[in-house]
């Protein structure tokens, strides 16, 4: 492949301590290198902002989203952000595009690329759903992808934890990642998804799970310890109990404190807490509900064992889709909205409810504020990932909006000015004047997600990194984001260049090439589990499949054919 050199860019690469310097970036064979030959193609960045390609460490882009598409034909006509949403006809290069919260697969690839994002993590997939997810991955162009596998309400997991059989638990986790060609361990409302089979939920980390002698705390600790024993690149990725419930703050704090006792196997967190905005509520009901962001931020500022993402809300129509079945039932009843419900055999629950958030509603306005408060009150940007929990808090095409909100107090105050009085004593955001700089923004949107996931080739521009680069039409040394937030927002939505694996895929906001992305998955089974333990697991699983599953054991595992461009990560065996 040809060599390339990016000149005259203002580079932000926090992992390598580059903070807005006019460095040159050399690319060869899809990788960043220290230098290239004189014949390298020169890309003149003209003084513009250069960052590593964006990494979205938590998005819902394949799997359940397909049901959401079926439920929301009306989403096909929404176009609040021209160029990044709504119907667009086929072109010589591109497939037709539709949708806003639930775009078609191709549009997901195009639009993330336009935002300068090059890697995405599907955040919740059961092994049963994995084959279909990989088929969807295959038709999301350009981006590198990975999937987090739901294990927090899995019967096997709970059985082995109940039995105190940590070897079987480890074996099963490694096997489930292999079976789904998945990357990491996701835990959604631990135990609650299993109780949802009986129309019930759990209310905290110490409730009993029906039919199993375990609690959500047991599940969290069991999976976290096994995750570290397997030396997986990512930590457990946790959606706490009681999502969206006023007064859920103690549950979230309990969960964070619980994990203090687990030791990380490598230089990263032991738990990533996702969409924290939905888990930071004080009060006892919607009447006295308020932001608990100060207590969450205070804890996180004092402890180093966890990271989180915002789950920032964006006003307008959204699509909530989660493995948290009882939460979606509550949403559907509360808003009299339509509802799709899952009970995925032994593996998890789930639900989908389309919603709309409005700044005139005191509760929505409060939730919007909490997401921003969390990101601004936590001092270390390496603990914070920027997300909207796409599309639960809002569609990913709104990332520039959310990012500019973090960078401009003026813009925040403009939005807050339209809030109802009922919101004002529930939030602290009006008194927070911190504005993130480009370095911090680069951490939250690239470097931190890559580190949090254990993706060493992503999120930075040092030699050896994948040549995924985003260049935006923003002159960091000339623009005052605080004031010129609208222009910056537009620039962040339509990258001047997005380079993926050394190839220019976006130029001046338009897609120029459609390479196929890689799929990262973790094989901790083959070398990580000894043969006697493998035999013990398979014997047990065969019995369980006969007894409980609607699928044959032999049909269950995702075959290699579904992952044509895999990057198989094998953790070092301790």
């Amino acid at each position, binding site marked *: 492949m040809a060599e390339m050199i990016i000149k005259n860019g203002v580079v932000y690469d926090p992992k390598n301590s580059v903070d807005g310097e006019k460095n040159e970036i050399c690319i060869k064979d899809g990788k960043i290198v220290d230098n290239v030959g004189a014949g390298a193609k020169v890309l003149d960045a003209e003084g513009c902002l250069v960052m590593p390609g964006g990494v979205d460490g938590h998005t819902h882009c394949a799997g359940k989203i397909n049901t959401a598409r079926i*439920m*929301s*034909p*009306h*989403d096909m*006509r929404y176009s609040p952000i021209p160029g990044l949403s709504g119907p667009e006809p086929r072109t010589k290069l591109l497939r037709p595009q539709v949708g806003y919260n639930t775009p078609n697969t191709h549009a997901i690839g195009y639009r993330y690329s336009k935002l300068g994002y090059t890697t995405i993590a599907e955040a919740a997939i059961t092994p049963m759903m994995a084959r279909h997810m990989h088929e969807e991955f295959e038709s999301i162009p350009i981006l590198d992808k990975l999937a987090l596998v739901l294990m927090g309400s899995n019967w096997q997991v709970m059985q082995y934890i109940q039995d105190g059989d940590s070897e079987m638990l480890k074996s099963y986790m490694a096997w489930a990642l292999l079976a789904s060609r998945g990357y990491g361990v996701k835990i959604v409302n631990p135990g609650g998804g299993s109780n949802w089979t009986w129309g019930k939920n759990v209310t905290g980390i110490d409730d009993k799970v029906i039919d199993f002698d375990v609690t959500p705390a047991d599940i969290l600790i069991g999976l976290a310890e096994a995750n570290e024993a397997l030396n997986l690149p990512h930590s457990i990725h946790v959606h706490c109990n009681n999502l969206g419930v006023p007064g859920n703050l103690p549950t979230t704090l309990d969960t964070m404190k619980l994990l203090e006792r687990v030791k990380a196997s490598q230089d990263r967190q032991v738990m990533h807490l996702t969409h924290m905005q939905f888990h930071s509520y004080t009060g006892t009901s919607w009447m006295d509900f308020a932001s608990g962001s100060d207590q969450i931020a205070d804890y996180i500022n004092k402890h180093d064992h966890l990271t989180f993402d915002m789950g920032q809300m964006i006003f307008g129509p959204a699509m909530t889709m989660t493995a948290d079945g009882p939460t979606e039932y509550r949403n559907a009843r509360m808003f*009299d*909205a*339509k509802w799709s419900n899952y009970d995925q055999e032994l593996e998890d629950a789930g639900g989908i409810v389309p919603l709309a958030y409005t700044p005139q509603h005191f509760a929505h306005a409060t939730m919007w504020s909490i997401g921003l408060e969390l990101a601004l009150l936590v001092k270390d940007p390496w603990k914070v990932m920027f997300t909207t929990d796409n599309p639960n808090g809002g569609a990913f095409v709104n990332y520039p909006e959310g990012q500019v909100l973090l960078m401009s107090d003026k813009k925040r105050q403009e939005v807050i000015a339209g809030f109802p009085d009922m919101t004002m004593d529930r939030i602290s955001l009006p008194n927070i004047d911190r504005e993130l700089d480009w370095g911090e923004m680069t951490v939250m949107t690239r470097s931190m997600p890559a580190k949090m996931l254990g993706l060493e080739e992503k999120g930075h521009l040092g030699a050896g990194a994948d040549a995924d680069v985003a260049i935006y039409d923003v002159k960091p040394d000339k623009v005052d984001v605080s004031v010129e937030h609208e222009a910056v927002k537009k620039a962040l939505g339509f990258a001047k260049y997005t380079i993926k694996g050394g190839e220019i895929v976006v130029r001046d906001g338009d897609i120029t090439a459609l390479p196929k992305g890689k799929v990262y998955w973790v094989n901790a089974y083959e070398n990580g589990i000894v043969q006697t333990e493998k035999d013990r697991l398979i014997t047990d699983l065969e019995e369980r499949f006969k007894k409980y599953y609607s699928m044959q054991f032999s049909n269950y595992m995702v075959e290699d054919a579904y992952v044509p461009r895999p990057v198989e990560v094998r953790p070092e065996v301790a």
Partner: protein
Amino acid sequence: MQTVTLTPKRSPVISIEAEMITPDVFAGKSDAEIGAIPAWEGNEEITLADVFDVAVDGSADAAGTKIIIDGNVPRVKRIGEAMTAGEIVVKGDVDMRCGALMSGGSITVEGNADSWVGREMTGGEILVKGNATYYAGGGYRGETCGMRGGKLTIEGDVLDYLGEHMCGGEILVKGNARLLPGVLNWSGTITIEGDTTLPGGEMKSGTIFVKGKVLEMLPSYKDEGTEEVDGVTYRKYTGDLSRNGEGVLYVSV
């Protein structure tokens, strides 16, 4: 005052997407300009002049523009879509979604209208002198709000799901309505002068008058005795209780 007369030249088999046939688009344009407006016939891009002879008399703004479709256009969809003012008269049948999203002005269809006439309209008036089919005054697929305002009158009969997801406005059907008129309603008033079946399924609120017979009644409505409205005595029901609804259903006694 501007009068635009469109005379159909042929009877297309494949439907034509004609959301540009509105006073808003035609106002101030010449016959040549209107004839040159592109439209889609299936997957083929055509112009209005391919389908219609266009005659324009005068020039005015949207409110002062009257469009006369002088013939039968049963395969022309979306006539009057999102119009805000002016008048459209169709001297024959129209295809689906006539007057969808309209917010003002008036449409008169002298023949029959196909499904989704007046879909999501917010204002203005539609009069269909013949029959309409499914989802008259209904919503877009997947949306939770259908017709929001204005008035839709159908002098003949309608088929199923009249005023589905209706959120406001007024619908009058002088003939019969088939299954489930007012299904999933939030608000608004529906009056059916003929007979109907299972009115108000999952109605949340809103009002339905049935002046003919209810051929089959949903079991989830509460009988509230009789009440006189505008000199007519009705049996009054509230529901749909299956959705904790507070809608009111009046059935003539």
